[in-house]
């Protein structure tokens, strides 16, 4: 069975991706996932963001378990 992962985009990243959520499959680790997302949404290359796996910031390559939720989070500055 393929590993399905839900990716959520926050803030103004959605202006670049045109979607708040996307499901991708057969993704084993965070490096692979980030590469795949950058391929799907090349405009993200210009953006600053952090990636979180199941509510924790991703600093290094880690394995992604099935049904994980990934967040792409930009900094917010408005007030």
């Amino acid at each position, binding site marked *: 069975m393929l590993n399905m992962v839900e990716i959520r985009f926050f803030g*103004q990243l959605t202006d670049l991706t045109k979607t708040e959520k996307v499901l991708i499959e057969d993704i084993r680790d965070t490096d692979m996932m980030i590469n795949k997302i950058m391929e799907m949404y090349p405009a993200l290359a210009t953006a600053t963001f952090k990636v979180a796996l199941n509510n924790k910031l991703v600093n290094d390559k880690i394995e992604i378990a099935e049904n994980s939720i990934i967040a792409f989070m930009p900094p917010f500055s408005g007030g």
Partner: protein
Amino acid sequence: MKLSHSYNRYQRQLILKGFGPIAQDKLSNASVLVIGAGGLGCPLLQYLVAAGVGHIGIADDDIVSLSNLHRQVLFTMEDIGKSKVEVAKKRLQSMNDDVDITTWNERWTQQDCVDHFNDYDLIVDATDNFSSRYLINDAAVLMGKTLVFGAVSQFEGQVAVFNYPTEGDNRSVNYRDYFSTPPKNGEVLNCSEAGVLGVLPGIIGTMQATEVIKILTGIGKPLINKILTYNSITHESYMLELEKKSISDNLPSNIENFLKTNYAELCGISYFGIDEIDVDEWDKQKGNLLLVDIREAHELPKLSELPHLAIPLSELYNRLNELTDANVVFVCQSGRRSLQAVMMLKNEIILSKAFSLKGGVDAMLTQKII
């Protein structure tokens, strides 16, 4: 509590389980500095004053304008053109004259942090730009102050409590543990450019006030070592857990270095001018320049009177072939996204030259070009 009218005023919170006169006294003896009296500052100041926080400082250098009124609920049409802090103080004082309010009608500086942070128990960041946010964060960490952070973007907002005392002499995470450096200038848009739903800063500012009251009274658990993102359209919230670094990256090592740091430059503000062209210059050279409107399709006013190409920023990458060999001037509403477009295309060799139109469509309107 000294006076019976105080009991009446605060009766609804005094009767709360775990609150009572002890918590009320903690509030009335507390001092809170709120930097920014805009979308976030207005609601949070109202609730802090209403709740009876004894001493409140407010800093903001801005004046009230008509476009503030859809979210900055302390101000009325009669206040347009007046100092925000002066109007806010008058309005807040009429709500509760038990509260002592000090105002600074100026842009808060590094020296102001050093001079005044120690007079306050808590600092609240209600500003609207990265330069101020990093400056306030760094000062709070270096001076050992807890900081209540709030920020909004379109339909979403964030709240967190930074640098809160934990075990021993340790402190919880701060903004540098999340994003150690600011984004490039023009990359993340402010409310005037990206828009904001009026009630959103109301919600986020009120959440910040909630954190302040919780911290001061010791009730509940403050949002430490995490950042809450709330989406007003879906009512979904997302809690991101943050890890404390032993030394926060890029934090100035001491107050002396903090005072030497150029926060405007750090946040890329010095980038302005490099690839920009102003409206007058563009008007002279427009015969040789292809004007490209990178705003999204719904944005107004349209540039229908001017020859131009409309390519929303989100589609720019996929439509680069339309710009082959052209000298391009990107235009957006205020000139921020167009800078982003120039940066985005810096490495694209298909262009001869790309500029950003300084001040954007707003500047064209001011100069009656459109």
